[in-house]
């Protein structure tokens, strides 16, 4: 079941086409990575989900029906460009923003007190925002994003500005939200966090979706049947003992060990490589090289003709 889907969304800003026939489906309960280089159209897409701007073409669905104005109460959005009123106190501001998200005054207060206690922020309540550090402000912003317990959470570059301790706390909290049943859309350039958190991704480049699907499947598609082998020093040439179809990509020494990256043809299995090596060398390790999201990202974006790869 998709909690949210977009069908053939297009958006034009005078001469610049921000989105071109973008279709994305976000499975319920997933952490969905929305990736793409700067200016690809991610923020425009997120703003369209939040109904901040309207698409020129295409349809949006929430929970299987067309998106309605009131659905903003089901969405929590932490924009990349985020901030707070500097002169307002933290508590007052949190109350205001929570009420704008449709909570009653009593309910807003009750929940905020709970979260302020949980995050050990109680002493901040009467402080002005300008008295808080940047990290503290980010915490307040995060809290405001989730205070109305939205079904769909959208984080645009959530980790920027967090120190490692707070970043890992934020990561845990995102996972906790997912465990509670929320769906998370996660837009970032930080591929390590994509690797760590996302189940699904969509990669937008030049206003189009160029890659879309579960992370596991994408990796499977982009793997190159390359293996890294570590073995004891061997004086002969590796080529001489391998079948000719096997390609040595790289070979180097690491202390007593010798290492090599070897690509095998798609119709062979890793066992063939092992059995070719076994009689000659002692194998210390043998791993398949899975492409990182970083590699995939760079490869997809820099390929001249980025033909959509849809899984």
């Amino acid at each position, binding site marked *: 079941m998709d909690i949210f889907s977009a069908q053939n969304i297009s958006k034009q800003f*005078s001469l610049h086409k921000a989105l071109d026939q973008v279709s994305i489906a976000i499975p319920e309960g997933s952490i969905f990575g929305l990736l793409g280089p700067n200016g690809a159209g991610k923020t425009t897409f997120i703003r369209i989900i939040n109904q*901040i701007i309207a698409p020129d073409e295409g349809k949006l669905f929430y929970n299987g029906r067309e998106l309605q104005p009131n659905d903003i109460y089901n969405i929590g959005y932490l924009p990349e460009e*985020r901030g707070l009123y500097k002169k307002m106190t933290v508590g007052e501001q949190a109350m205001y923003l929570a009420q*704008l998200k449709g909570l009653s005054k009593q309910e807003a207060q009750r929940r905020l007190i709970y979260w302020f206690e949980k995050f050990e922020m109680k002493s901040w309540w009467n402080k002005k925002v300008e008295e808080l550090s940047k990290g503290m402000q980010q915490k307040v912003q995060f809290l405001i994003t989730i205070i109305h317990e939205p079904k769909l959470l959208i984080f645009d570059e959530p980790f920027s500005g967090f120190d490692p301790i707070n970043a890992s706390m934020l990561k845990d909290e995102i996972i906790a939200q997912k465990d509670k049943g929320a769906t998370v859309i996660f837009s970032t350039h930080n591929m390590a966090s994509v690797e760590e958190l996302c189940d699904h991704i969509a990669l937008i480049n030049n206003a189009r979706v160029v890659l879309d699907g579960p992370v596991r499947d994408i990796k499977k598609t982009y793997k190159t049947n390359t293996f890294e082998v570590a073995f004891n020093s061997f004086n002969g040439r590796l080529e001489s003992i391998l079948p000719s179809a096997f390609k040595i990509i790289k070979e180097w020494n690491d202390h007593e060990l010798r290492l090599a990256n070897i690509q095998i043809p798609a119709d062979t299995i890793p066992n063939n490589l092992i059995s070719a090596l076994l009689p000659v060398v002692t194998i210390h390790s043998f791993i398949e090289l899975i492409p990182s999201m970083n590699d995939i990202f760079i490869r997809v974006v820099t390929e001249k003709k980025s033909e959509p790869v849809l899984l």
Partner: protein
Amino acid sequence: MHKIFLIIKREYLTRVRKKSFLVMTILGPLMMAAIVVVPIFLATRGNELKTVAVIDQTGVFFEKFKDTDNIKFHYLASDIASAKSSFRKSGDYALLFIPKTEVSIPTNAILYGESNVSINIISYIRNVMTKQVEDMKLEAKLRDLQTDKKNPLNVEDILRSVKTTIDVNTIKITDEGKEEKSYTEISMVLGMFAGILIYFFIFMFGSQVMRGVIEEKTNRIIEVIISSVKPFELMMGKIVGVGMVGLTQFLLWVILTFGIVTVVTSTFVGKGTSKHTAEQTILQNAAKYNPDNLPLASAAPVKKSQNEGVNAVFEALDSVNFPVMIGAFIFFFIFGYLMYGSLFAAIGGAVDSEADTQQFMLPITVPLILSMVMAQFFIQDPTGQVAFWFSVFPLTSPVAMMIRIPFGVPYWQVALSMGMLVLTFLGTTWMAAKIYRTGILMYGKKVSYKELWKWLRY
């Protein structure tokens, strides 16, 4: 609706709780009270005896101008031209000329003076003339009634037909012997005052709206908020919230000013400033003429004022229709402010910082400043073409109309001006909403007029 209320509340409370609001709330009335109290003070101090020469071509007012503690009247038999030429040598403070009228009842007079003639002299002269003319009218009216016994005596009717307004135009005779119209009249003071006030309020609170929008943009909170509310709601909430701050300030000023004026005048001037209204006089006189001696009204005996100067100012103020003035002020403030406020909000939305606002501020501030610059002309000729067009053109009408209103403006002109203003307000709000909603999401881009035009058509 609920959310726009939340926005209004926030905008209102954050501003009202600021120290600067408190300071302005206290300073404003002190300044305004000074404007009212100082002339009264000066009037009570001015014990210097002033002589006024009178040329009364009508003969109606002969011996009617009684000398007071500080005004002495003497009648001249010469014609006005020679009196004027010898005025500067005569040592008289002012020269009152009541021209002959074709109809029997004179309603205007010209007062020549070397400098601006003080307001209590004008008021005194006007009161004497008014009372005299009203007495004459009343006498005639009651004589009619006595001959025509069938008609029942209707007090309302009599009061209405007797009520008279006397125009005293003041003209300054300068050193070169040239004549200039001078404007010490209370209506001019009030007109200028209301004009300046509305100008000041629109500017002050309009730019507060603009700064508020820029603040939200530079704080980067705007995107968080518009993911919960529509940009239009945010914009209108801000404009209305700030406007309510303005109204609160204005009402506090009015209340505090009246408070201060009352306290100061009662302590300084104190005893015996009973006001002597035209109605009371008329009722008293009517009782005198009442054939059947019916009790018309329990007309209290009018105490003779001990302090003519203070009374003169009070009576001059009495001649102003304050409910109309304040009502008009509130209307022109609200809609003038809403119109300018939406334009200011659009500018705030289109720029990144206050430094970038210059180029867009110009077309907005020019009409406002122009209407202040032209104020002189509106006062010289409050019913003229210039004054009319400026008070109908929406961008200048709030200031221009407020300057004109104390002089009396035909109702249809007020209605036209108000209608135009409301329509323009709707137009500017529509326009501003379009610019605002695009602009608030743009960062780091210098926006040109061409760009704004494009945004209007998105």
